[in-house]
């Protein structure tokens, strides 16, 4: 099999691409898509650690399954917020949603 660190490198690269998207994109939906990429990188790390360190126990698989649940909830609420902001401000640029700014 491929050594563990190669998997970790791929998921680190995926995470950093997601970080770039979150920091640089001006579009709220694109920012959320980049957050999904970062969540996927974390998920891949969890599964890789399960397979290489403790593959006979079920704990790692269960942990990854709960990450799926949280990711689904995050996507639903995040997109609802984006649509609500768009409806109120006719813009989904995160920098323009600054009502709470002091």
């Amino acid at each position, binding site marked *: *099999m*491929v*050594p*563990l*660190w*190669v*998997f*970790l490198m*791929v998921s*680190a*690269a*995926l*995470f*950093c*691409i*997601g970080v*770039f998207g979150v*920091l*640089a994109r*001006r*579009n709220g*939906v*694109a920012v959320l*898509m*980049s957050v*999904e*990429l970062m969540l*996927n990188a974390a*998920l*891949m790390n969890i*599964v*890789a650690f*399960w*397979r*290489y*360190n*403790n*593959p*006979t126990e*079920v704990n790692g*698989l*269960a942990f*990854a*399954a*709960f990450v*799926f649940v*949280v*990711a*689904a*909830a*995050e996507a*639903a*609420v995040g*997109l*609802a917020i984006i*649509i*609500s902001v*768009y409806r109120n401000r006719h*813009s989904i640029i995160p*920098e323009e949603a600054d009502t709470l700014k002091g």
Partner: protein
Amino acid sequence: MEFNFITVAFIVFSLITLGGAIGVVTCINLFRGTIWLMVSLFGVAGLMVLLSAEFLAAVQVLVYIGAIAILFTFAVMLTRSITSDKMRFTRVWVNVISAGILFVLFALGVIYPVWVANAATHFPVTDAGLATTTDLGVALVSGSQFVLPFEVAGLLLTAAMIGAIVIARDADDEGN
């Protein structure tokens, strides 16, 4: 690293994953961005198959590609001004350099000293007796293992769905 089928499959799925991710963050038309997101998530599903987590790969395809990516497609269509948005990025080079420095820090500060230098961690501790999907299903409903987190996860999903409906509902409809 010997050159065999698993290595080739790993390289192909890694390229699909990272190429799709770069498509997501650079595509100016967000509808294409969601298609790239599906490509990237499919690559991650392939990597999960290589890690012997077949059930999670199937869930990845069903939940991420089948539900979340479709949800993103709907969000793109409901907020239509974005496909004509000409400004993709803010402070692009600063952010490219920051993300690159973060990757270098991950690689040299964490992955290299802990997992590359220690050859004992390179390969799985065992290839026999892997936990199967049956074990996962039993563990999720067994009283001594994960039944409480399982119920809490169900509650979390219900609360999130109700919250999403409440947040996204049109304020003008509230009188009806």
